[in-house]
Every structure is written in C-alpha cells, then in structure tokens.
C-alpha cells in the first residue's frame, strides 16, 4: 500500500494536476470568505463541470476547494461575525472579539496556521490509516452513533450563553427545525405543508445564511456611518514569521486534530460539530477559561484546527464504505462517482494512482493553505471591509442569494432563508445565542434517526442502547462532560469551606 502511495506521487506533480490544487485552494478561500457562499455549494456547482476533466484535475480542484473553504470561512467569521461556512461558527466566538480589539490580523494568522495544521494531520490520517480507521467506523452502528449525537447535544450546555432560558429556546428551535421533512423511518411528511422542497429537510446552509448573515447585513444598512474597529488599517497585522512564535497551541492543535479526525470518520455529524467540540475541550482544559469568548486566540486555533482536521478524514468512510463523514464529503463523493470511482475496498486496488494521488492533493492543499491563505487573507480580503457599509451590505445580499439558490437551484430555498433571516434578526437583537440552533439542527434529527433505527434493530427493546462497550464508553463520556464541571466546582468550593 505504501509503495502505491509513492507511486502515485509523480503524477500529482504533473502541471495541470498541481495547478488544479492551487486554483482549488484559492477558489476555496474566496468561496469560504464570501458570506453566503459555502464549500458545499461550490463543490456541487463544480461536480457536473468536472465530467469532462481528467480525474486528478477534478479531484485536485475539489480537495483544494475543501481545504481552502474551511479556512476561508474564518475570514468573515473573524471580521464580520458572519461564519463563511457552517464549520466556522465556533471561530466567531473568539475571532470576532479579537478583531474588535484590533487583533483581526493575528486572529486570521492563527486561523490559517491552525487550519493548515489540521488539514495536514487529516491528510496523513487519510494516507496512512484509512483502512484501520474505516474499521473504527464499522464499530459505530445506530446505537453508538446515537450516543455520539447525544454527546454532541450535551455540549450545547456550554453554548447557552448568559441566559439559559434563551439558550434552551434556541436549542429547542434548532432541534425542531431538524425534524422538518420526511420521517427518517416511515418517510411520511412532518411539517412540510405539502412542499416537496422541504421533504429532504432544511439544509444547514440555508439556516446558517439566514441566521448569521442577514442580521449583520441589516446592521450594515441600519447604521451606515458607524465606523467600528474593524477595518484593514487596524487589523494589527504583522508578518507571519513574526506572528508564528506567538502561537504556542500545541496541545490544542493536537487535541483539535484528533477530535476533527474522529468526527470526520463518523458518518453524518461533520465539520461544525468537530469545531464546537474542539473549542469546548480546549476551553475546559484551559488554565484561564474566563478569557474565552473575549478574544482568546487559542479559541480560534481550537475551532480552526478541528474544522480542517475532518476534511480528509471525512473521506475515509466515503472512500472505503460510501458513507461520507461531512456534507461536503457527500458532494465530493458524487464527484468521485462521476469518474467511475466506486467506493469500496476495491477502489484502492483498482485505481491506486487516482486514489492515492487524491490523498496527496489533500496534503498539498493543506500545505498550500498557509502560503496562499497567509498573504491572501491578511492583505486582499480584509480590504473588502474598507468598502462603504451600504455597498458592502448590498454585495453580501447578492452573495447570500447566489449561495442559497445554487445549492439546489431553486428560489424556494431563498425565501426560506429570508424567513430564517427574520427570525435570526429578532434572536440577535434579543440576545438569543445562535450556536445552540446550529448544533440542534445538525444533531437533533440525526440523534432521532439513529435512536429509532437502534430501537428497530432491538425490536423495541431500549436495552439495545447499552449493549456494547462503545456505547457505554460514550455514555460515560457524556456524563463526565455534563456533570464533571459542576462536580469539580463543588469539590473546589467544598475544600475552600474546610
């Protein structure tokens, strides 16, 4: 296998194949950086177009876009508090406060370096450990996946914000939205009102653009003359080689990479969950958790390393089993099928040059990210924020429409997005936290589907949920994460009293 890996290398350096990765990374950063445009949308637009391309050119473009977009999403997340892609939601937590403090440049540099590290770790996992990791995926049947989802949902309690009632309303709203569509088992409609367009559920991008991009646009138009601290002149950028020594986040990088890779090989949950979990874990173990959410660079590092660390690893179950680990990987799987690359164990045997070449492209994509992203982001993109606010607002409106329309090519989604936008504006003004909505939408229906599959397998007996070690470990982890902080606090308080 490792000789196949080396054998595939020269072909990756063929001019067109390599150029495809470079173009892909740049395009990915741009797409990710545009509020409203997402990696899912970019790759779904690209797939039909790749029909006429050489496999490695097509796959190189996709690998580049995926890597680029996962970082690109951080740019508006930091500068405008609009996550450019769903996976960048957690980046806003500390990235935006940093930008407000005039450290936007450093935040972006942390983001690009972390993204690159996550991407490289993930690419190595894909190259060296795909077969064993795909065995790990097989351990996760419906009942285990249900517990993973519960574990993710439990972490909502750290995202509730200052007012738990509002946080829980957000979470309930997110979970409720996740059940809209056809019932996961019987296929009957739930709350679709006869609209075929809603039968497949609410696409995360539609909700995200509505909730996160529309309120800031309204802000831009509402107070056109406001000059906040965010513009390129005081991004506080210094050359990246000077910034690098200030980044001492090795623990967070390693932990975030592992979390990202692990979430990636599990089908369904995807990038945003990896970023949330990495962020929570890093904060939980931090020596000064009180600075988190106020502009802690390590928070940006935690979110960005994880959302790139699940890119290549999401392809492990996609390539070996045909089940993509993230929404973007699902679209990419289509791009593989177009080129006759059928997922399965034979894939590695039948098309080694293409499959291993594709893996190399992921690695080079991640490395290129730091070179291309470093200069692109801090120089050109931030300039966009120098645009007069009304103009910036109107351009973002157009991008939102394009991004949402292009996912399925229908206006229905645009209207849906505007509906969520109105809700999002009210939530924003009344300080309802948005992250629980996102996590609820991603994990709510996912948990339900797997619970009901598990119950069917157990023929109605709920004990099926506790019947194996993997499930029990996940239950224990969930309890530890939820109860742990309270116990720790009690313990410390108790000692003080003595």
């Amino acid at each position: 296998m490792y000789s196949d890996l080396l054998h595939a290398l020269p072909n990756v350096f063929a001019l067109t194949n390599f150029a495809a990765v470079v173009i892909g990374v740049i395009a990915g950063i741009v797409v990710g950086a545009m509020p409203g445009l997402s990696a899912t949308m970019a790759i779904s637009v690209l797939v039909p177009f790749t029909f006429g391309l050489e496999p490695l050119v097509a796959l190189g473009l996709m690998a580049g876009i995926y890597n680029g977009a996962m970082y690109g999403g951080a740019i508006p997340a930091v500068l405008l508090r609009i996550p450019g892609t769903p996976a960048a939601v957690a980046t806003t937590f500390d990235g935006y406060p940093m930008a407000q403090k005039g450290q936007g440049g450093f935040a972006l540099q942390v983001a690009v370096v972390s993204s690159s590290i996550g991407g490289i770790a993930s690419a190595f996992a894909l190259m060296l450990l795909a077969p064993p990791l795909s065995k790990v995926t097989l351990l996760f049947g419906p009942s285990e996946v249900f517990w993973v989802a519960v574990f993710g949902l439990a972490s909502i309690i750290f995202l509730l914000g200052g007012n738990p009632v509002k946080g829980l309303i957000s979470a309930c709203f997110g979970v409720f939205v996740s059940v809209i569509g056809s019932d996961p088992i019987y296929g009957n409609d739930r709350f679709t009102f006869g609209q075929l367009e809603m039968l497949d559920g609410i696409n995360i991008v539609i909700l995200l653009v509505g909730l996160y991009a529309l309120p800031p646009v309204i802000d831009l138009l509402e107070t056109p003359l406001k000059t906040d601290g965010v513009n390129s002149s005081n991004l506080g950028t210094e050359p990246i080689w000077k910034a690098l020594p200030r980044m001492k986040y090795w623990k967070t990088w390693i932990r975030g990479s592992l979390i990202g890779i692990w979430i990636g090989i599990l089908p369904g949950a995807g990038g945003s969950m990896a970023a949330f979990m990495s962020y929570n874990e890093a904060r939980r173990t931090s020596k000064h958790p009180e600075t988190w959410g106020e502009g802690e660079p390590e928070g940006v590092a935690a979110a960005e390393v994880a959302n790139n660390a699940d890119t290549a690893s999401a392809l492990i179950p996609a390539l070996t089993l045909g089940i993509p680990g993230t929404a973007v990987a699902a679209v990419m799987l289509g791009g593989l099928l177009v080129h006759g690359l059928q997922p399965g164990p034979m894939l590695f045997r039948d098309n080694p040059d293409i499959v291993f070449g594709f893996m190399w492209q992921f690695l080079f994509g991640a490395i290129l990210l730091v070179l291309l992203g470093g200069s692109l982001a801090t120089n050109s993109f931030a300039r966009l924020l120098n645009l007069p606010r009304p103009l910036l607002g109107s351009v973002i409106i157009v991008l939102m429409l394009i991004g949402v329309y292009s996912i399925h090519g229908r206006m229905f989604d645009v209207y849906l997005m505007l509906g969520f936008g109105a809700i999002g504006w009210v939530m924003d003004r009344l300080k309802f936290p948005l992250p629980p909505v996102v996590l609820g939408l991603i994990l709510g229906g996912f948990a339900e589907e797997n619970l009901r599959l598990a119950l069917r397998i157990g023929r109605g007996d709920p004990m099926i949920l506790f019947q194996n070690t993997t499930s029990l470990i996940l239950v224990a982890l969930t309890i530890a994460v939820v109860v742990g902080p309270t116990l720790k606090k009690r313990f410390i308080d108790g000692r003080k009293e003595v």
Partner: protein
Amino acid sequence: MFNIFKTTALAGALALSAGAALADYPEKPIEVIVGYSAGGGTDVMARTAAPFIEKYLGDGASLVVKNMPGASGQIGVTEAANADPDGYTLGTFNLPGMMARTIDREAGYDRDSFTYLANVVNDPNVIVTSKNSGLDTLDKLLAEAKANPGAITVGMSSLGGDDHFALIKLQNATETEFTIVPFKGSAPARTALLGGHVAMGILNISEVAEFQDQLNVLGVATNERSTFAPDLPTFKEQGLDLVNGSMRGFIAPAGLPEDVQAKLLNAFSQLASDQEFLAAMAATANPVEVVTGDDFKQLTSDLYDLAKGVWETTPWN
C-alpha cells in the same frame, strides 16, 4: 385549468407547425431533467448516455442535463411531466420509486403523464448477510427466519423502494417474517451490515459488487445470471422465484408529436447495441438492460400494480 388551456393551445400550435419544422428536430438544445444531484447514480446515467443520444439523434443535437434534486427525485419528475411536450424537455425516471410515490403521497403526475422512451439501467436486488451472522446460505437464512419469525433484522434503504418490495416478495413467497430497518440510502445500510449491526441486507447488485469479500451474497433477483456479476447465482437457480430490481430510464411528457417521439425512440433503442456505451456504463457500475417504448410503459404499469398491491395489504407510512 390554466395548464390544460396552455397544453391545448400548444398542441394546436404544434399541429399547425408540424411537418416542415418538426422534421428538423432537434433545432435547439434538449434539456434532460435529473431529479437528483450531480454525481448520483441517475445523474451519472444521464450524463453517460447524453453523448450517445446526441450521436444517434444526429444533426448536431445537444443534450443538456439539468439537476433538480429533492424529494427522492419527485421534484424533477414532476417538472418533466408538466413540461411542454415538444421534445425539448426529457426527464429521468426511477422505478419502482416514481410509481410508489403516486401511491404513498400526493403526486403531480401519474403513469399516463409520460411518453416512455427507454429504461436503461436495471440494477437487480441481492440478498446479503453479514459475515458474523452465520447465515451464509439461502437455506440457512430461510430456516432461521421460519424458526424465529422477526428475529432477523434487514438493513435496506427507505420504505416504498425496490429493496422493500423485494423483501415483501420474499416474505410472501417463503411465508417468513423479517424486521425491517430502513436506513437513509443503501450505503449506510451496507455499512451497518459490514459492522454486523444488522444480520441481513437487501441491496442492489451494483452496491455489493465491490464488497463481495466482506459480505455473504446469497443470491441475485434476476431470471438469468447478471452479466454485471456472472459468478453470483440467481434465486431461481436456488428454487426461489424472486425477481426484482431498481430501474432507471428516460421519459418525456405525454403527448409528444409523433415524429419527434419516433426519432427519440429510435435514438434510445440504439443504446442497447452500442459497445462503447455499454463499456462506459459498466465503468460506472450501472447494469444495463434497455427496454424501450411500449414495453417500458408496460413495465411501469406492472410495477405500479405491484406497489399498489403492497400498499393495500401492508401500507408503509
């Protein structure tokens, strides 16, 4: 109401302009509406077939694939059914799904809404079991199912699809009972099977071809051995009359002008003997079985009756 008016008006206009103008068909690009995202099985079929159809239509014909994904293909097929029947809008068609959807929910079309061009892919069902289930032959499986009704869990893609109908046929033919576990699609069902979370699976031959070493393939639901995987035995060989599969083809709205229909049918029927096309389809794991025109219509009708019968005895939602 408006639609009826529009159709009659158009039909009238078409009748008037028939003859000289239509002899030139096609004089502009033909749109093929695919009800799934780019990269899905149906999409790959449409894009693989397109250049060959262009070749057989001649006159510099061009086919443009348009993806209208959503609701298991229903959005796209409804659009195709209600398009102007001028030969410039075709659509892809999936069986038994498209017919089952007219039974289990409101649909904006029925089996008379289409001009049936050609069914191109017939992907037969297979029964597979996981390696650790110990059920490595059909006889063992059926014996176990009879001994413990409902004890065997069956992973498959959603209810009301070809997998489901194959299981119903199996249950009726052998008087057995299984517990259905409907996953969202075949790949998750196959993964649960590989991990041993369900004992048995009903999938399609193209979906298990790559996984023959990891699963026990008990049989293929065809009359004769599939050219796609000739080493796999059929159920008929094993004394079980079970024939079922998932089909994908092309339709146009009902009421095409006759010469346009003839030209299209002629082009589609030539696919069956085009070696280059067959090779391209094999490369994308699509078992080909071309059925054109009235035979395709009959096939659809039969599947509708099957789905209707199943729905009346055991409705699935």
